[in-house]
């Protein structure tokens, strides 16, 4: 099993179930096949309840899948303490809550140095740099220059953008091969967004790291992602390259999401009614069918798939490179002869 040519990280049939307080089983992830190649930017897009954060956490090993497995370089994850520590050296994550992710009693220096100390990188650095030099280098790479000026600052003295950069620097310092970023810019001001996204892009372009971004913002995916996976209620409903999915979407959910991105011209907005259902009550058949606009306007009935939408569950989308959607209507339309 060659580890250099295959995907870096894979999810195979991963499902994660929680037991809610009422005793019901909530399936945050309900069968996901995903493949993360080396040195690519993948965007996992979805709303709350889609399972995107759970997927990211499961890929990182913070959650253990109830079914299926996560493979790193072709081998299933070993959840022992030592193996996890070695794994974290190579796959890192920037968590969602930037403000809360920094220990308020630690200085910026200590927050960034934490990873270096945990993995004893001051002893194993190829360039022979000291811990302080590595911290300065990480902060510089994250765009905070001159880095020494921030060494003794506390989190509450930093702006939102600076906090986010410090967190990215902390992950960078370990020189991982893959960085997961959960909603990296959603709590930041609009004008700072671009800088942080440019930083993430530089991780791929200059440092060769792979990036997986979890977000609800389609525009973010358009800005920096090579590939995109759209999630709904615990499953991937569409995947492909960013251009394919965002300019020629196949799944009605993706189409609806695109149509409501605030613009002045372009697509007629399709505002879905209601909200994403509770993960403990996933609809039968196609999980999107109760809210599907293609059913509401009769398209599925005319195509003869309406009953399938209501009763037949769809298979898990395989993690191939093609542009595919988990949709009965799309399957019929894409296999129908032209004309």
């Amino acid at each position, binding site marked *: 099993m060659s580890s250099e040519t295959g995907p870096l990280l894979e999810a195979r049939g991963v499902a994660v179930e929680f037991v809610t307080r009422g005793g019901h089983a909530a399936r945050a992830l309900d069968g996901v096949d995903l493949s993360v190649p080396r040195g690519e930017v993948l965007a996992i897009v979805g*709303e*709350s309840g889609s399972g995107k954060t759970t997927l990211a956490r499961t890929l990182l090993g913070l959650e253990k899948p109830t079914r299926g497995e996560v493979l790193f370089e072709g081998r299933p994850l070993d959840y022992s303490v030592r193996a996890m520590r070695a794994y974290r050296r190579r796959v890192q994550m920037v968590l969602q809550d930037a403000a809360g992710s920094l220990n308020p009693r630690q200085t910026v220096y200590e927050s960034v140095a934490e990873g270096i100390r945990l993995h004893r990188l001051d002893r194993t650095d190829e360039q022979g740099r000291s811990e302080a030099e590595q911290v300065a280098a990480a902060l510089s790479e994250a765009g905070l220059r001159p880095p020494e000026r921030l060494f003794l600052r506390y989190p509450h003295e930093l*702006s*939102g*953008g*600076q906090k986010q950069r410090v967190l990215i620097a902390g992950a960078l310092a370990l020189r991982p091969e893959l960085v997961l970023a959960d909603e990296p810019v*959603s709590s930041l*001001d*609009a*004008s*700072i*967004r*671009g*800088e*942080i*996204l*440019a930083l993430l*892009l530089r991780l791929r372009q200059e440092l060769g790291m792979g990036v997986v971004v979890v977000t*609800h*913002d*389609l*525009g973010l995916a*358009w*800005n*920096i992602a090579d590939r995109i996976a759209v999630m709904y209620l615990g499953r991937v409903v569409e995947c492909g390259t*960013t*251009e394919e999915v*965002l*300019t020629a979407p196949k799944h009605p959910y993706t189409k*609806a*999401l*695109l149509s*409501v*991105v*605030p*613009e*002045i011209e*372009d697509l007629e*907005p399709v*505002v*879905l009614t209601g*909200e*994403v259902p509770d993960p403990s009550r996933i609809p039968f058949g196609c999980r999107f069918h109760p809210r599907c606009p293609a059913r509401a306007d009769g398209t599925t009935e005319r195509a003869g798939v309406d009953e399938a939408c209501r009763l037949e569950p769809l298979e898990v989308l395989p993690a191939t490179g093609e542009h595919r959607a988990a949709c009965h209507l799309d399957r019929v339309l894409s296999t129908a002869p032209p004309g």
Partner: protein
Amino acid sequence: MSAVSEEVEPLLALRGVSVTYHTAEGPLPAVRGVDLTLAPGEVVGLAGESGCGKSTLVSTVLRLQPTGAEVDGEVLVLGQDVQTISWGKLRALRWAGASIVFQGALHSLNPVQRIGRQIAEPITLHEPELRPEQVQRRVDELLEQVGLSASRARSYPHQLSGGQKQRVMIAMALACRPQLIVADEPTTALDVMVQAQILDLLRDLVRDLDVGLLIISHDLSVLADVCDRVLVMYAGRIVEAGTAGEVFVEPLHPYTAALSGAFPRIGDPAARYAPAGLAGDPPDPRSLPEGCSFAPRCSRAVDRCTHAEPPLVEVHGRPVACIRAGES
């Protein structure tokens, strides 16, 4: 400057409003001379990011600014200056004349009270002569108006989703039939689809109830979608104003251009692998730079920009505070 006819009395008129906080380290000018008007049935957007003073400005509308904040200029709500009128008149105005949907609505609800009771509270305060059944009926009406079923009145906040809580906040704002509603960041922290639903709801309410709506947001594209006119705020001042289309599609001030470009147009090949943003952070009101407060972050800044704060002048028919606006 605006397209509003002078005969109709504006619901909201801010004239030269400045707000200065007196802190231990000295005066902090949060708002520096803002003019704004809003007519009945109009939707006006105020675009700005954290630290620009927009929340402070909103708090002056119902005299809710913190004690110790000095307010200059006139804040006219339904023709009355809220900063100087008597306490009784202010109470009457609060909620029945104008109401506010605050930022972070998700945390503004009392977790141990049912929704129905929280919505009923302003009603019973302003109309104490109503009987309980009448109040209950009004609460049910309001819930339906915002797209929730009346049975939701018996729920507790933790049983509602983010979007539903925001709807409850809007219902509360409508409780006393105000003529003016101010919504501070009503869609931040909401999912895209829920955001679209809330914006649709606000649009419908303005049309059906003929209220005036002032929306504050840092997302210029949201404002461009819903508002008739948009004003852009930076470091306590208005730096550009115009119709939503003008401001979003042909921004004259470099800051507006940055805000407008922050969220890319999906499908635009130029935006692929090219996230657009501003370097640096918004200025600290305690130590504003010399001259134009945006100059340190501006890609078009020249030496002249640091001499004096650019005044709001008319360029291409609308006010802009940039000495290089309109240059080709």
